[in-house]
């Protein structure tokens, strides 16, 4: 079983063009963690430097995670052969911890160079992420890919002053700093379809906004027909509006597809077409 990048996903995981936005959506039971890890892998470890970008080798990555701590990413990255700590020491990777300190006031968890978000306020969050981006920019030029895992948590738990519009503005500010942005967001049915409570309305607005802005969307969901032993879920790739209008570069690589995937117990992933 291939523990690396599944061949069918390679075109999607390659270094996205400048100013692009990629949206990964997940549902309960079909988490996008493995996909985020594949993005980390393909961004930090480029199989052939001649593939897409001439400057591919010094692509850097900032990972902001609101739901998972660094230990999780480190452990699962290691299974892919991805030593995040090594990249961090080479100034090619920075982690912003949005879990440990966000709503826990009293823990003084300062772990080396890792950044810990301590307050859900926009100014603080935005400043911390930008600082992480700038800390990578210090060394030399290179594309910085910003990956934000479950940004929607900020919206759901942050309180009244955080609305979908404000969050969108913060996102635009952050996207200016980065070469490309990858977001993972929950898109469970109750969160995007009911739209009765403020929580649901805000979430639906955020998901809609981002999905219209996004260059392409990779959405994960469970099998419609129940569970199966050898299929974990369905991966659907939808090309966004902006690509259809211009920028032929990415259009050539990206086509809309619906694939099945299976995450093995060892963390390896198989992606295949229906019926294969």
């Amino acid at each position, binding site marked *: 079983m291939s523990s690396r990048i599944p061949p069918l996903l390679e075109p999607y995981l390659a270094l996205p063009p400048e100013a692009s936005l990629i949206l990964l959506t997940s549902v309960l039971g079909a988490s996008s963690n493995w996909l985020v890890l594949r993005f980390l892998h393909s961004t930090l470890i480029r199989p052939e430097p001649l593939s897409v970008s001439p400057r591919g080798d010094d692509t850097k990555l900032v990972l902001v995670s609101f739901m998972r701590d660094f230990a999780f990413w480190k452990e699962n990255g290691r299974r892919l052969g991805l030593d995040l700590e090594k990249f961090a020491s080479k100034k090619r990777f920075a982690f912003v911890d949005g*879990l440990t300190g966000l709503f*826990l006031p009293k823990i003084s968890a300062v772990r080396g160079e890792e950044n810990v978000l301590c307050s859900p306020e926009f100014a603080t969050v935005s400043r911390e992420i930008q600082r992480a981006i700038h800390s990578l920019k210090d060394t030399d030029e290179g594309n910085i890919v910003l990956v934000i895992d479950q940004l929607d948590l900020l919206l759901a738990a942050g309180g009244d002053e955080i609305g979908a519009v404000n969050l969108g503005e913060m996102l635009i500010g952050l996207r200016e700093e980065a070469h490309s942005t990858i977001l993972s967001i*929950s898109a469970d049915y*109750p969160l995007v379809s009911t739209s009765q409570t403020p929580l649901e309305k805000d979430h639906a607005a955020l998901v809609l906004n981002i999905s219209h802005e996004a260059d392409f969307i990779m959405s994960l969901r469970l099998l419609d027909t129940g569970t199966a032993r050898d299929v974990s879920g369905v991966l659907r790739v939808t090309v966004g509006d902006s690509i259809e209008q211009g920028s032929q570069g990415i259009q050539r690589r990206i086509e809309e597809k619906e694939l099945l995937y299976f995450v093995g117990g060892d963390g390896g992933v198989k992606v295949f077409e229906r019926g294969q």
Partner: protein
Amino acid sequence: MASSFRKRHVPVRSGGLVSSEPKSAKQELPKGVRPSPIDGRSTTSTGTRSLDGLLAGHAGLALGTSLLVEESGTTDFGGSLLRYYASEGVVQGHHVHVLGMNEVWGRDLPGLVEAVSRKTAPVEVVNERVLSGTIEGNEDAGSGTIGPGTKQVADGSGSGAGEKMKIAWRYERLGEFGPKGPSTSSSGEVFCHDFDLSKRLVLPSPSLMYFVPSTAKPDFEFRGGSTSASPFNRFLDHLITHLSASPSTALHRVVIPNLLSPALYSSEVSRPESILQFLHALRALIRKYSTQLTAMITLPLTLYPRSTGLTRWMELLNDGVLELAPFPSTAIATKSTPGASTVHEEPPQGMLKIHRLPIFHEKGGGGGEASGHGDDLAFTLSRRKGLVIKLFSLPPVEGDSEAQQGGLEHDHGKATKVDIEF
């Protein structure tokens, strides 16, 4: 045999876990902890054997994870799960932190089945096989209705293949691991005890149970200061102080019964920012103390339906999500007159749905042949066996007489055929 088994496990666990190198090197796991058969991470028991067996093959609740048990209707099966979980913690000497209840709840925990309480003397090496064997014997002597139960299969000594077929297949796999379990923990401790709902657990005198009441007005006392702080913040403060004060080998269990139930909580705390911040902070704590802390939460689903965004966020913030859907009591009543073939099997009292499993779904889900995810599962709560979860199979249709008639007709048919042939 035992030592070679241990040696093989050491590198796996030190690779899987992040911060437990000193412990794993010495192979001195805390009481009530054993390595997972899948990846060697430390797990602890939920106090319910069949639930342990469901958790994606880890044969226990992995340390550093949380479990959300949702229940619809007015029953409280989830509460029983919590009590077993808390009892197991008390018996194993873990710290148990309860939110929203007071000491009365702690006095109502189910007690140990007698044979176990005698055998858990500290020096005596208790083999699980011997242990469950004695329980089996006791139960057989006590009540004639209990036949070849799950325990016998669970310890790998189930005899007939036919019997195995009747009982959920996943116990077979557990059975392979069962005998190894005690050998891996250095002192041969019992991983999961048997509890009796009709008995009361005697708490040790310096009790390691802590209660943080949810309301700001604790039993007829007037305390002006604490009214402002939300119960969640008080609970988090309590957890932080205890976790930072206790040694790194001490295990802690967080028990939260009936989260957000209006009987326990004021309406303010069910605002998304309040409850989701709390769950997020709890998740952060659990991850921070990922070798010490587990949590189990029950949520009344009728008040917070799964179709709402708030409930979905609560589910997303927990590692495991189970849903208990009890049958209406009338269904139990009609099914309690079982046919001849189901004498040993108690009728299921409800269905159990797995929406998410710890570790398993965090990785992406899949590769869990042993998870039981997606199967139809039913649960039965009984006094002695506790909550037993097994594959749901429809009992013989109530109109069993029809089938018998069919059989009779068939017999007649046969008979006439035979007659004709003659």
